[in-house]
């Protein structure tokens, strides 16, 4: 996955999600799910038509989510995986960076696989957990 290290635009949420798992295998399972969701989301977004009857929750999407055993996810939860974001695993920790404000799809996967999740914007906090003193927003 692509790792972003520049978050230039102020027109973004600049969010970081940190999922801490009990074991490395839990974090690995989350990474696998998120890879699969990215592929799925990109395929779904390519079908783009108002007159498609099942556009809100396509059958293929439901089937794939079933296989991944992610039963609590809806279309918008999957869609965010098609937007710019990056994911990185270090041991039993998974970090996600996104500019969107929609994070439920990420949180659901992390929580489903047993993580404790921390969410913050880099506009206000540094990644080491210290507040950013140089911001007034």
């Amino acid at each position: 996955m692509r790792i972003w290290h520049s978050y230039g635009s102020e027109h973004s949420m600049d969010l970081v999600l940190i999922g801490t798992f009990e074991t490395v295998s839990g974090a690995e399972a989350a990474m696998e799910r998120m890879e699969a969701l990215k592929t799925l989301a990109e395929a779904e977004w390519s079908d783009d038509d108002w007159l498609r009857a099942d556009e809100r929750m396509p059958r293929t999407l439901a089937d794939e989510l079933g296989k991944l055993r992610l039963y609590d996810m809806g279309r918008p939860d999957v869609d965010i995986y098609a937007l710019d974001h990056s994911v990185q695993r270090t041991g039993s920790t998974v970090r996600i960076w996104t500019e969107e404000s929609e994070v439920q799809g990420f949180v659901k996967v992390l929580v489903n696989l047993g993580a404790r999740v921390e969410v913050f914007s880099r506009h206000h906090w540094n990644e080491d957990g210290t507040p950013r003193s140089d911001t007034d927003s």
Partner: protein
Amino acid sequence: MELTDLARLPGAADKNFEALTRAIVSRRYGKLGTLRERRNQPGVEFYLHVEHPGVLGAPGRVWGWSCKWFILGKDNELTSAQRSQIEDSVAKAIKYVAGLTDFVLCLPQRPAKKDEEWIHGLGPANGISTKLWAAENFDAELSGYDELRSTFFGELVLSPDTLARAHERSVAPVKARWVPPLHTSNHVERRIDRALLRSASFDWLAEHTALIADRSGALQNALVDIDDETTRTATEEIIADLERFVGELQAITDAGRGLRPIEVCERAADLQPPATSPRKLRAFVLKLRKQRLPVALAATGLASIFRDGLPVHLVGRFGLLGGVRAGQ
């Protein structure tokens, strides 16, 4: 059968006369070509492009029908004002209906012989053929369409009065228990409303259109607060798209409320979904959200409103306005 009896039906007599003529033409000749009509169509009420050879002649001919609710005086003569109205319609029809070959003037009463000759002479002078449909012609055109005749002139005339009496009769046995607020309208009533092109049957579409127009207005008002050029351009594009879609939906409602069923079907069939695709719209909403702009709220839910408005497209496509298409 007296065409002047149409004045006894509810609604304006000239509109009833047009509805009758439209119903006859669509039933008798609808299979020979495509009927077209538009609001304030100059010269004729509607016209038909002949596509299949038959009683209207060879393919390529174009027939137009003009209805004039002229009540004649004692001598059955057209007044000079009535003559100039007819001349005006012929001229406008020739000008605005491309390729017009046959102009049918529909009158509720047959005018004096000299007027009839004058009418027949109007066409050749302008390179077309003119025909007169008066009482006897309507009688002949209605042969084989008894249900249509009864709908306008006989026992099938359903006026609000007869319906009210029928309703009174049907609830009489349960009158003591009859509490009107407990009884709601059902699909049959709605289907009848639609077939009769009652204004109420277009309320849902009008409400829907108003919802989209509201959102479009909210986006428009928010433009001044968007300082980022790219987002402003995207918003302007979406506003233009919404306005186009709203305009098309309004035209369908107007055609329905104006009792122009053919136009309703044509416009519904031609209705294009918004040019902004679902994915593009979703990306737009997310963009507004991540910039934490208040207008994000106005854009949220637009997709659902679009989807709920689109069935009108399918209504047109599958001709579900059955009665409407037939011009009842």
